[in-house]
């Protein structure tokens, strides 16, 4: 008698085919406090949390076309927490009337052997950085205020250097495709943060 085959479960979770709606902006270091103060007032009053993450960006170069990019991220503050693997698609060209950048997004929680696994698969680490900051939520809206730092010695997250004198502010929502009402909510929220920070729809391709 043969053993039953290893079950190959279909992926049934709701994490597939989600879109990320994103608005970005930045504040100078000196105005961080007032922004945080404002966010604390606007967002759900769960205790404000700070975070420290290490992100590694992996590329898989094929024969032709663009390389395939995956982002692996881990929490430095919670070393036992799972890694987070993320695929971000190209921003949808879509109509101009939409208030936020929309792109395909696949989120996977992964075990700690993720870097080895990716290396085995042929991915190569392209760059890495450390993000430290604060995270807020208001319903489904997520606000991340973070300082990005360059990792000076590869793999050593203790030895970092800030990339700039400002903080990156990101307002994002994960929603199934086609739910454009969330972008309306995002715009309303972004309006309330003016003039502390101007959150805008920024196309990453334009910056490259």
């Amino acid at each position, binding site marked *: 008698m043969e*053993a039953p085959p290893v079950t190959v479960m279909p992926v049934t*979770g709701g994490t597939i085919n*989600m879109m990320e709606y994103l608005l970005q902006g930045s504040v100078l270091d000196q105005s961080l406090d007032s922004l945080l103060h404002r966010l604390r007032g606007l967002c759900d009053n769960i205790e404000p*949390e700070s975070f420290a993450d290490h*992100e590694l960006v992996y590329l898989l170069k094929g024969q032709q076309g663009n390389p395939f990019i995956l982002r692996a991220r881990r*929490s430095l503050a919670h070393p036992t927490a799972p890694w*987070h693997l993320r695929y971000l698609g190209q921003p949808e060209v879509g109509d101009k009337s939409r208030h936020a950048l929309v792109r395909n997004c696949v989120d996977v*929680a992964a*075990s700690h052997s993720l870097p080895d696994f990716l290396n085995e698969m042929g991915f190569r680490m392209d760059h890495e950085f450390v993000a430290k900051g604060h995270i807020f939520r208001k319903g489904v809206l997520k606000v991340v205020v973070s300082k990005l730092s360059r990792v000076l010695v590869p793999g050593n997250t203790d030895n970092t250097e800030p990339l700039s004198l400002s903080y990156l502010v990101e307002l994002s929502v994960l929603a199934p495709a086609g739910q454009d009402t969330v972008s309306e909510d995002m715009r309303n929220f972004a309006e309330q943060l003016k003039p502390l920070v101007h959150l805008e729809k920024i196309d990453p391709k334009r910056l490259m």
Partner: protein
Amino acid sequence: MSQNLAKLAQRIDFGQGSDSDEEDPHEQSRVSDWSKPDLEGEDGLAKFQPCSWPWDSVRNHLRSSLTEMCVLHDMLSVIKEKKYMALDPVSQDSIAVKTPQVFQLISKKKSLATAAQLLLRGAEKLNKSVVESQEQWRQRDFNAELLHLRSQWKLRKVGDKILGDLSYRSAGSLFTHHGTFEVIKNTDVDLDKKIPDNYCPLNVQIPSDLEGSAYIKVSIQKQSADIGGLGTVSLFRKSPKAKPGSQAWHLKLEAAQNVLMCKEIFAQLSREAVQIKSHIPHIVIKNQIISQPFPGLQLSISLCHSTMDKTNQRASPEKTKPDDHLYVLEHNLHQLIRETLSSSVMPHPASAPFVPKRLRVAGPMAYDKTARTIDSLASRIEDPQIQAHWSNINDVYESSVKVLITSQGYEQICKSIQLQLNIGVEQIRVVHRDGRVITLSHQEQELQDFLLSQMSQHQVHAVQQLAKVMGWHVLSFSNHVGLGAIESIGNASAITVASPNGAYAISVRNGPESGFKVLVQFPRCQAKELPKSDVLQDGKWNYLRGPYKEVHWSKLEGRNFIYKMELLMAALTTCP
């Protein structure tokens, strides 16, 4: 305005033509006064200037008219007597007299009315400003209160209403109660009366089902006789003593929120009571959970909710029994609710989506733990070997791994132990090849112990398989031996096999903890230490198996247990 008023007041002269009989010598000049208002104005201004009171002239006029009236009255009474005085008609032009009289009366009336109107208007204005200032004061007070409320409770404006939030939703609660309260302006106070001391311009309206107070009561009963409640925990802040500076609405909201919390705790407990399987099922009826942790002992948890009117009646017995309040239980309940709430916390790393913690624990964390346990066992123990085949595509709530326990070089014949581990949210389900299911928790030790006992069984299974291939006969086989030293984990297993011609027998006992012990039974003829028996004369009895001897296993050559066993069997098999 006051000038005008004074002017008008001055015009009121009751002496003016009040009586047709009395011909005032000044009358003519007064009439001319009316006809020449400009002159009079200047004149009047000069007249009223010294007196401070606008009604001064009116009073004077009234007094003089009164005097005249008195004189008239006296005169009339004298005339009535007809002793000293008599009235005779005097021929006069009546029209000439009457016209000015009517005119005077109308003008007097008019000026009175104008003065009255002026006064009324002024009073109205004053009144309005008083009301306005009071309203403003109340408004300002309402706004201040609202600000105060806003600093402690969550508020939002919906249409023309101000709604507040009592729920723990923003802290991660998924309780379905909306927990909304409405802020209303307290307008039912009468402005004319004195405002009571405890008056507050702001009032809150809480949902009717959150009114009153609630607590969770836990009691233990033996059989049917009550052995007394173990205790009652009241999460209601007993006898809400107003802290200085705290408002009535604050106490009301706190009480309502406490009711909501009790409801939420109870809902969570009910859910758990229904979900947890037990020999005697837990019963959830209305607002009571009944469970039997031990035979004859009944634990009941109930949600007590009383409306406002009963609060005062209940408050007094509570005060008399302060021991009724179990702080440990209260702490536990708080902890429970906190645990439930913190199940959806901020994601770490920050890029991860907002998902319940459960999901993240279920997937990679359980996967990692299991993988680590299997890997460490595999690297620590070389014989038998553990192979783990992980499935690459997993469900969000479950991952699976197939574990094979084999002996190196004998993979084809020894594949008795094949396990499938389904790693789920709360447990690991182990499915045996033969369909048996064992459920393990995520405790690493548990899985490790299980695998160790499986590995120990594997060795005995392998001997059985090998015996079949080598042509040996299985005399006995047991997965769980009831004899010998007790193992701390699992049971020892044992097998006895006899050589093809029956001359030799090998007994193997293998325990997860004690390890293995191999004994060989020799034919009697080879046992030199056995004294020759006088009873057994016939040579055929020499082929009976005699005593056992333990094999010095470590001295045996071979890379693993099963290889050594094969060598041993081969050595004991007589060539035909």
